[in-house]
């Protein structure tokens, strides 16, 4: 399918052009004593401070769902955070956006539309997950049901690692990638995590040898190639360009365009597990932004398994078809490499916080573009970022193209 003309109806730098102005994050890992609402409150205040705002400035809250428990998710849906932040009575709207791992991309689209049209002025997007502290067997059962058709596929005993393993095997078959090359993706991510104090594996290096020596969980995936479930929370603030200028903000981040493709619901119905929806999503994103794959300074791409990222990189055109894993093995995505990938360490090394893994990658992209990442991992002069997300059983490929923008007087 060819991408049709798909224009973004907001001009760069126009008063209604939506911009990101602040981010907040707390460490990812196992924090059983850190409460759910506590985490949300913390990242909300951090993001507001970063944006130079107070809670009262926020008129719209968008919630990224947690997956660790239905009661906590209901608290999000029913506006608990409005009260926790003390903006009940003034807040206009609070609601959840949900498409699994691609939620953050869709939350940006929602916020972008609300702001550009004037339905919202200042939007706070919040995420918190407690996967690291939740009961493991409950999580496995939950992850065997979410995104898997109970009547057709659950009887096979399929679950999340099995899905990742099938995609990995198909990718290795199609590309001729070796186990060493697949493992090198995880090593690149760890090299970045070793530069991120908030990452679960900040202090732990990782080698290809260690990965291949770890136990087989779901052939061809070794345990060190499976994402570590973690607690984590992050947030970001968006406003319109006119508001940002009024507040004296001189540099912000705007959305240059986006593209997406929902290619299946059940993994078994995907036409090609080594391709997924990325080529069409990329075509649509280039069409909307005028960018090409060579125009970005960094990419923050969903990485619950190595193949999920290599397939995305190939579909986006960052790596040649079939060369994604070898592209990593050559060090291209590493610190100092050709195109830094997942500069926070990604889901595989910063920690998999459920729906929050994609949000953390998005927040890292915004942080890099605002030039607010710690010096040990800030990509110098970073101007443009490709953000990629995927939800469910890799049901969709979502691309956001973000760029740093100077706000005139």
């Amino acid at each position, binding site marked *: 399918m060819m991408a049709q003309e798909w224009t973004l109806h907001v001009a760069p730098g126009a008063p209604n052009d939506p911009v990101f102005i602040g981010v907040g994050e707390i460490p990812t890992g196992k924090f059983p004593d850190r409460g759910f609402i506590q985490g949300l409150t913390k990242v909300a205040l951090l993001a507001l401070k970063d944006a130079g705002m107070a809670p009262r400035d926020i008129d719209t809250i968008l919630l990224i769902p947690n997956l660790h428990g239905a009661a906590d998710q209901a608290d999000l849906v029913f506006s608990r955070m409005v009260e926790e932040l003390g903006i009940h009575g003034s807040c206009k709207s609070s609601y959840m956006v949900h498409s699994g791992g691609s939620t953050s991309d869709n939350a940006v689209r929602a916020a972008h539309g609300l702001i550009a049209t004037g339905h919202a002025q200042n939007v706070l997007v919040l995420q918190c997950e407690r996967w690291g502290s939740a009961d493991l067997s409950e999580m*496995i059962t939950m992850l065997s*049901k979410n995104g898997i058709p109970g*009547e057709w596929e*659950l*009887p*096979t005993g399929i*679950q999340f690692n099995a899905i990742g393993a*099938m995609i990995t*095997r*198909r990718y290795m078959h199609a590309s001729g990638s070796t186990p060493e090359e697949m493992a090198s993706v995880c090593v690149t991510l760890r090299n970045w995590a070793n530069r991120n104090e908030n990452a679960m594996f900040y202090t732990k290096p990782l080698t290809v040898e260690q990965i291949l020596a770890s136990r087989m969980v779901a052939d061809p995936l070794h345990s060190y190639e499976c994402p570590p479930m973690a607690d984590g929370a992050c947030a970001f603030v968006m406003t319109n360009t006119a508001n940002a200028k009024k507040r004296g903000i001189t540099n912000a981040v705007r959305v240059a365009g986006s593209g997406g493709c929902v290619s299946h619901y059940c993994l078994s119905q995907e036409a090609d597990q080594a391709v997924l929806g990325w080529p069409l999503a990329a075509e649509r994103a280039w069409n909307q932004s005028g960018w090409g794959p060579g125009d970005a300074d960094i990419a923050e791409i969903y990485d619950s398994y190595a193949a999920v990222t290599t397939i995305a990189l190939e579909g986006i055109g960052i790596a040649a078809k079939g060369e994604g894993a070898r592209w990593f093995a050559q060090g291209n995505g590493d610190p100092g490499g050709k195109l830094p990938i997942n500069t926070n360490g990604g889901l595989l090394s910063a920690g998999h916080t459920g729906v929050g893994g994609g949000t953390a990658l998005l927040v890292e992209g915004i942080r890099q573009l605002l030039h607010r990442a710690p010096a040990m991992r800030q990509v110098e002069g970073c101007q443009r970022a490709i953000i990629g997300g995927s939800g469910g059983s890799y049901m969709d490929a979502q691309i956001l193209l973000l760029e740093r923008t100077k706000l005139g007087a």
Partner: protein
Amino acid sequence: MKTPAIVTEFRDGLASGKLLIQHCNDCGKPNMWPRYACPHCQSENLGWVQSAGAGTLHSFCVLRQGAPEGHEEDLPYAIGVVKLDEGVQLAVRLLPSGPEDWSGYACDDRVEFVPVSAEQIEKRPCARFKRTGG
């Protein structure tokens, strides 16, 4: 909640040793998984045809730990995605070639449907496949 007819009829097929594919009586196209309306022409006039049971293995994995609740006793087991020659796809269990041995399987292998007992279908209502000639 009552199990929908498209589910029970598909499972009844498996229990009697047949792999059924939903067939649209209006446009004639096969649908898998079975739908409530034909995704090609939106007709609700839907029936079944028996699959020849032959296809290619798109991908597969061997799960060794972390089985979903109720599947623990089956570990290790293999799950595959099969593209049937009729042009539809489905997720299946892959039978081992020897005790806990799936080492002979590869992507794009020719595979075939293996009927199993009604008791086995009752317990795990999904299709079983093996390598053709294997």
